[in-house]
């Protein structure tokens, strides 16, 4: 694996492993994160995986830039277990359309599809979480079908409820917090992606896959109730890598 090192000021090191949004580049990002996790380099505070790089935050009084680069270069020599041939899929129940997804109609119209077809295509296969950011718990998902792509709204909404599922261009995502935003909203999930009081405040992490499971109003209310009384268990499944990439 070849790395390209760049300083981000005096307290962060950017390690670039690729130059495009691609599952194979993402795989390298995952491997590097695992190596960093195992290496426990003194002075390193944390790291941020993104599409093409891993950025390491560190204390310059504990470790210098050049020393840190050397440490990371040596990581390559360590044997790394093979890339997992199975992946973890987190299932999010989604109610599509209506008040929960007021832009489902326009997404269908823009693509010359029925609303049912948009739902089917959107919920067909799992999406890779390339990285997290924008706001706490927001997953940057990859792999949406261009058949249901739709431009952002000309006028962003001042408030989008947490849990809204949206489309912007060929991206799809879920708003973890109530924020303003210009994505076209096609549905809503009652499962909180971000809850600061939960033991694991953020539900998703880079490297997982997300699958949207359509539910009807009854199913939606059932999940809402479970989330409210704390009995909801996130549905997870394990998939073969080939299955999700095909």
């Amino acid at each position, binding site marked *: 694996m070849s790395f390209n090192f760049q300083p981000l000021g005096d307290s*962060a090191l950017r390690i670039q492993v690729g130059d495009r949004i691609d599952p194979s580049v993402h795989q390298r990002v995952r491997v590097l994160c695992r190596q960093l996790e195992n290496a426990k380099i003194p002075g390193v505070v944390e790291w941020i995986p993104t599409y093409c790089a891993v950025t390491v935050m560190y204390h310059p009084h504990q470790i210098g830039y050049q020393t840190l680069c050397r440490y990371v270069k040596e990581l390559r020599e360590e044997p790394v277990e093979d890339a997992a041939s199975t992946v973890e899929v987190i299932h999010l129940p989604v109610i599509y359309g209506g008040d929960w997804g007021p832009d489902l109609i326009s997404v269908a119209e823009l693509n010359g599809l029925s609303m049912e077809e948009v739902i089917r295509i959107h919920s067909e296969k799992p999406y890779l979480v390339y990285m997290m950011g924008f706001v706490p718990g927001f997953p940057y998902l990859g792999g949406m079908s261009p058949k249901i792509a739709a431009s952002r709204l000309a006028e962003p909404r001042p408030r989008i409820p947490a849990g809204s599922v949206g489309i912007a261009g060929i991206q799809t995502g879920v708003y973890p917090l109530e924020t303003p935003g210009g994505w076209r909203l096609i549905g809503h999930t009652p499962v909180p992606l971000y809850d600061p009081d939960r033991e694991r405040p953020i539900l998703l*992490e880079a490297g997982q896959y997300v699958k949207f499971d359509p539910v009807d109003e009854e199913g939606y209310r059932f999940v809402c109730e479970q989330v409210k009384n704390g009995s909801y268990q996130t549905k997870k499944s394990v998939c073969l890598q080939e299955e999700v990439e095909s």
Partner: protein
Amino acid sequence: MKGSIEVLKPGLMTTVQDLGRFGYQGYGMPVAGAMDSLALQIGNLLVGNARHEAALEITMAGPRLRFQSDTVIAITGAHLNPTVDGNPVTCWKSMRIQQGQVLDFGQPVEGLRAYVAIAGGIAVQPVMGSKSTYLKARVGGFHGRPLKRGDCLPIGTPRRSLDDLSGRWLSREECPRYPRQKKVRVVLGPQEDAFTEEGLRTFLTEVYEVTPQSDRMGYRLRGPKIQHRESADIISDAVAPGAVQVPADGQPIILMADRQTVGGYTVIGTVISVDLPWVAQAAPGTRLLFEAVSVDQAQALAVEREKLLRQLELAGA
């Protein structure tokens, strides 16, 4: 004995901040924390707290606070004309406060953000390992929001007797100053190649002014347009504190404490860590002149800064 502080008037924006929330940036959680981490740490050391303890961050127009118990406080950072029961208070110095006394602030003299450190710290529950308020997600600090009139803020137990803690000060020459024009040092990159030679020269030779569209998330600057070669957009990537983003309009933005963890604009350079506290104190209208330094130079300065804080820590122990 534990005490509390009553908020008689909240001021423009008063929040609870420590050194920030680390370990969750990979999940998209911003660091937040004190904008001027140097003033926060010195304030804490003056009242015998750990350097990372939470204090009140005050912005421009200060609050009016009544102390419900005897304590020791220190005010650091911006000079916002603090008074206790109407009598002027010396900044960068710890002082005894009697139960019932009222701390107030007047017209700002220098700087933008002051810190009130209280012996024992602020006894709010840490969220994800930090007491810092992150406003956008309404998390941490005091109920995830700026202080309001009528709030009663719990304070912790001092590490030593109050008599031991009062009357500590920072020598005059060690106190940071906040002039209205200053050189800000940056390490160039990672996208310096996205700019024309002319663009880079503009960035490093022209003066940029802090605009009123500046907050805890970022400082928008105004000045001669910094020219890109082609695109101002990149594949979203991680950003560091002090990153200087340049969107297509060529006007730089310095990313501060509440910055998002990732961004999609070209970053021309990153402000070095010892200069960032000063940027945090720059009010709208302040003029910045950027200067490029090497990462080694920046780190040597960061090590010096850490030594100074260690010395203060030992002197107060």
